[in-house]
């Protein structure tokens, strides 16, 4: 086990934003700060091992592990730092765990800071995983805050994965790609929340392959594009068996924001039941007026509507 290293105030604030961590978390954790491991804890059931080539970590969860959690937040507070990290999760059969990942970047300098985290999940039979990933950027430097998460999820029979992906503030550019394949009886639920502002751009790409009979996926994205930001939401579900899939992109557009939503379905089996929904629109005027009749100003009303929408 490593001792916790010095973590500065900015890093502490970032940790709070991305992992709701006020102090050292319970259970297994690995905290990465400015490109180095700052702290690590393993438990009897959850092991965290650095990859030999130093490119990331392996998280191994023993079969049957119940009600345990793993926190693996990453924080960057140094300008100009660029890193690519590979984290592989091996989740044992019949386990039931919560995994909290997240990345916070504070860039006050003039150079770009970038973190590309590649997460690969191998979810064992009947295992149940709740995965929470939050991305956050702060700092008023001219250097950009760039995050390009890649997520791969391989789900074995009758496993369940619930993913909560949140990026609300401060990340200048992001390209998030999520690929999932599901065997028989596996169930995937994704809730994505995305907000862009300024001149940010965000690409969110999902490719979910339902390969086994009885597998199902529900991918729901809610996003808000403000100022001059741009979003492309590309969500594809492939039905290759007797499965059910649903995608939903629901977006609010404001100011001069732009959104391209590309929901797509591919059925390769007559037994596949696939549905997609997509809607983009500005905040309804009557919603603002209703909240104004409760005494809120127009700006306060907008804020409440967006907060609710992204909750």
């Amino acid at each position: 086990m490593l001792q916790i290293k010095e973590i500065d105030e900015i890093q502490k604030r970032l940790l709070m934003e991305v992992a709701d961590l006020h102090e050292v978390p319970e259970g297994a954790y690995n905290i990465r700060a400015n490109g180095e491991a700052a702290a690590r804890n393993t438990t009897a059931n959850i092991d965290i091992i650095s990859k030999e080539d130093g490119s990331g970590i392996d998280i191994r969860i023993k079969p049957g592990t119940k009600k345990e959690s793993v926190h693996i937040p990453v924080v960057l507070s140094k300008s100009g730092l660029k890193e690519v990290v590979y984290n592989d999760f091996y989740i044992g059969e019949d386990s039931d765990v919560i995994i909290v990942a997240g990345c916070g970047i504070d860039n006050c300098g003039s150079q770009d800071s970038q973190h590309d985290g590649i997460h690969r999940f191998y979810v064992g039979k009947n295992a149940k995983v709740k995965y929470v990933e939050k991305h956050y950027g702060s700092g008023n430097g001219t250097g950009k805050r760039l995050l390009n998460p890649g997520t791969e999820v391989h789900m074995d029979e009758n496993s369940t994965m619930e993913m909560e992906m949140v990026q609300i503030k401060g990340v200048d550019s992001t390209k998030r790609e999520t690929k999932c394949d599901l065997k028989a009886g596996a169930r995937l639920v994704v809730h994505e929340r995305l907000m862009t502002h300024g001149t940010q751009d965000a690409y969110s790409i999902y490719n979910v392959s339902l390969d086994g009979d009885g597998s199902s996926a529900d991918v729901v994205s809610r996003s808000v594009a403000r100022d001059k930001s741009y979003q492309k939401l590309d969500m594809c579900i492939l039905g290759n068996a007797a499965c059910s899939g649903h995608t939903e992109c629901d977006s609010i557009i404001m100011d001069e924001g732009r959104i391209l939503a590309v929901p797509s379905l591919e059925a390769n089996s007559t037994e596949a039941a696939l549905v997609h929904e997509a809607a983009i629109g500005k905040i309804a005027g009557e919603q603002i007026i209703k909240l104004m009749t409760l005494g809120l100003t127009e700006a306060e009303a907008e804020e409440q509507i967006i907060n609710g929408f992204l909750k």
Partner: protein
Amino acid sequence: MLELQNISFDVAEETALGSEQKEILNDISLTIEDNTFVVITGPNGGGKSTLAKIIAGIEKPTAGRILFDGKDITSLNVTDRAKAGISFAFQQPVRFKGIQVLDLIRLAAGRRLSTADACQYLAEVGLCAKDYINREVNASLSGGELKRIEIATVLARSTRLSVFDEPEAGIDLWSFQNLISVFEKMRARIHDSSIMIISHQERILEIADKIIVLNDGRIAANGTKEEILPTLIGTASAVEACKVLTDK
């Protein structure tokens, strides 16, 4: 409490011959006293909802002045009128994705009410609070449920003047019985405040102190319930009310 002076409202209407001004309200003057329960009634298209929206500040009158507690509020926007003490319940309540009933009641109250206090308002409008407090105010709620929540937000504000635009619209007959008792309770509790309801319903007209009949953008009658109600029974507006009821 509220005084409307010579309120008129016109809208531009596109016709085959081009745009022409259509008169919705014409020279409306009326006063609502403190501690009164006023019902505005009259045929559909007579200008009732427009009048309510002008009071709430959602529409601006083409001419005339509005005084609230002696202060000219004609130029105040919706927010400032709400802060001055006017509440408005929409005929068709607005839905919000993600905003929960509790959030909406807290926003209405303007403070962080405890869940128990917020539930109290739901109970008053006949909703079982624990079933609704954490529900989203979205399309999963029925028209009748939304109407009650809308009324609960106005109760939570407890302002000097509460305006309800056709609270019975979109409510089934069963829920309507409960709704009447909600308004009867409100009527009994009026204190330093007034209630104005736009309604076609005889049961609501019966609990009024005053009744104003709007027809074709003008005040056709204005007086106490005892003066006005007998003249309405069996007339065109009452027939209209029956029609509304049978349509539901």
